[in-house]
């Protein structure tokens, strides 16, 4: 057991730290569209310096960073409050899928514009009737004159209105068992058969969208991983999404917690014994999340693929964020209840944390079945 960074890891951290110190564009502007453009510029800058897609192999324009280096990078990003790149889904999911399952032509076509944010990606998985039970999805793709014709509806799609490409999971065989009849496509969003409608959230803003496919076309060359293999291909991307959280999310919760501690001190509530206990509980939870992620990372390096431990981190992170914003609301009183204030936004936005990217309830199923080996009810 040795939790210190090696000399090489330290050098890497210093390199990241100084680059971010000089290039971090600072706080994001107000407004959805302005924020998006800001993030796209930021990603271009990252890409020019070779920091976009750091986990990608060098031959595909990435940096070939080790898992530890990825964790260090994300931690530094969180520590320095650097904005997220615009094309997160392309970088974390789309690109890795193309690299793992794509043809040479697909790699040639899709990877570079993901890195540069020239083409934004979105994820067309969830549907109104297929949330946690993703494999039951109904959007259909039918072969027609050498291409595919898509009809159906997707929901909770981040950045669909900005996206050029959609990672589309569609049913290509209605007779096969539900996990086996799915195929993974890269669908062009800029066509007549695709309609995007924003979904207004409880926060008042619209981060997510619905997508309606009515006779949209996908060329055969944009099918990834082979017909009927969509579930397997999609699962790799979901695991990447979860492995992407972990240590970095702990750093950003810790940052929020430090902010809250300052607020508490400013208001002279630092001696309140109940608040002290609640802060300590959060502090311990954040540290447990950080350490658990590092343990999982060590495990991943030894075994190779991200394990179901990521499910604990996701669940833990959601709970911490929710408890933290609840404590902030208690400390701030009515001030945190006015719409438009920072903490009212966080209080409301964090309600989604236990739903997005896999609900806490499903995370518990995964832990029960895959870690503890308990029988499945289904």
């Amino acid at each position, binding site marked *: 057991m040795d*939790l210190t960074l090696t000399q090489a*890891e330290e050098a890497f951290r210093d390199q990241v730290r100084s680059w971010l110190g000089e290039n971090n564009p600072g706080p994001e502007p107000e407004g959805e569209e302005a924020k998006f453009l800001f993030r796209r510029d930021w990603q271009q800058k990252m890409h020019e310096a070779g920091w976009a897609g750091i986990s990608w192999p060098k031959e595909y324009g990435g940096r070939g960073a080790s898992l530890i280096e990825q964790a260090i990078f994300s931690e530094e990003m969180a520590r320095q409050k650097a904005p997220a790149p615009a094309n997160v889904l392309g970088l974390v999911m789309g690109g890795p899928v193309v690299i793992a399952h794509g043809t040479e032509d697909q790699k040639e076509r899709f990877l570079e514009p993901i890195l540069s944010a020239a083409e934004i990606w979105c994820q067309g998985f969830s549907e109104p009737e297929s949330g946690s039970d993703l494999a039951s999805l109904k959007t259909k793709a039918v072969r027609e004159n050498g291409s595919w014709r898509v009809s159906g509806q997707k929901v909770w799609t981040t950045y669909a209105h900005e996206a050029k490409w959609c990672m589309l999971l569609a049913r290509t065989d209605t007779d096969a068992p539900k996990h086996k009849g799915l195929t993974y496509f890269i669908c062009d969003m800029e066509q007549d058969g695709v309609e995007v409608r924003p979904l207004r959230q409880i926060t008042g803003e619209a981060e997510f969208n619905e997508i309606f496919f009515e006779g949209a076309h996908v060329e055969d060359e944009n099918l990834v991983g082979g017909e009927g293999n969509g579930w397997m291909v999609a699962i790799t991307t979901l695991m990447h999404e979860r492995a992407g959280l972990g240590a970095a999310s702990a750093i950003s919760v810790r940052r929020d917690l430090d902010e809250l501690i300052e607020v508490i001190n400013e208001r*002279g509530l630092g001696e309140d014994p109940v608040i002290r206990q609640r*802060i*300590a509980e959060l502090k311990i939870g954040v540290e447990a999340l950080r350490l658990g992620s590092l343990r999982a990372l060590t495990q991943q390096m030894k075994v190779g693929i991200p394990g179901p431990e990521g499910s604990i981190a996701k669940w833990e992170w959601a709970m911490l964020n929710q408890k933290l914003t609840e404590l902030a609301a208690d400390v701030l009183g009515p001030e945190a209840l006015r719409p438009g204030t920072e903490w009212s936004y966080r209080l409301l936005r964090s309600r989604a944390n236990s739903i997005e990217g896999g609900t806490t309830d499903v995370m518990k*199923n995964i832990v029960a079945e895959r870690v503890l*080996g308990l029988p499945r009810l289904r």
Partner: protein
Amino acid sequence: MDFGFTDEQNAIKETAREMLAKRSPLSAVREAAESRTYPDALWSEIRDLGWPGIAIDEAHGGQGLGLVELVILAEELGYACAPTPFLSNAIAGLMIDSAASDAQRDRWLPGIASGEGRGSIAGTGDEPGLVPDAEGAAVIGLDPMTEPRLVEGSAAKIEPVELIDATREYARVSAAAGEPLDGDVARGLQVGAVALSAELVGLAQRAMNLAVDYAKERQQFGRPIGAYQAVSHRCAGMLYDTEEARSLTYYAAWCAGAEPQSLPLAAHMAKARASDAAWRVTNDALQVLGGIGFTWEHDLHFLLKRAKVGSELLGDARMHREQVASLAGLA
């Protein structure tokens, strides 16, 4: 960076797991608890393996390893719920190593390392004079929070106390004088709390295993109860609690040797979370087991009771959280 055990540390863990499974199965724990005695053979085997001196330097007859190795053993002994004075003796060794003078170290550490002259330290909870394994100890540390001092076991007044945890011996100890402990007593308490946290993690792990095994076998309404989410989610929560406590405990143990400036916060966090986790997990296990878990006949209650007492010793969760709050910068 590597948050895993070395080959040597893994070997220590495996040896301990195997030896304790053979020499101290839960049937032996029951026998010891019901007669409120320790099996001598187990303690001599532990001594033969050199465990009591694992974290004591070689100059004083120990193995010269660190808190991480000690934590590995404490976790396994917790997993076995083994009835031995290992932990109290080890915690005394840690306290004397941290806080005693050279002369005191020369006098007491060799006996602690061999197990021939055991030590123990009074708890810091609501009952200040409460000492585990005081009877037969060569040296006892008293009043660590107020007037820290070492007394010879033979010079102390020792009155046995029965607690709900019958797998360990407890006593109320008083003594007029003693030699003052002038060094870093706070550190001694911190590393002691980490060792105890490891035992709590082991207890939680064992209780979880019992519950999960049962949930796979026990059938109701024609299915194993572990297929129902009310049960399986409870089990997932047990894993969550146990793993959080384990991460915090391992980290604190590592800090003691490698990053001493991080030890105080890490140790308070570990004991706070391990105290809560051990009680919650043993409770949840009881709920999963249902009526059978409430019977004397089932072994779970030995784990549950030791977890409850352990969660109170060397500071309960509330006390450690209070320390965390101070270190977190609350004014």
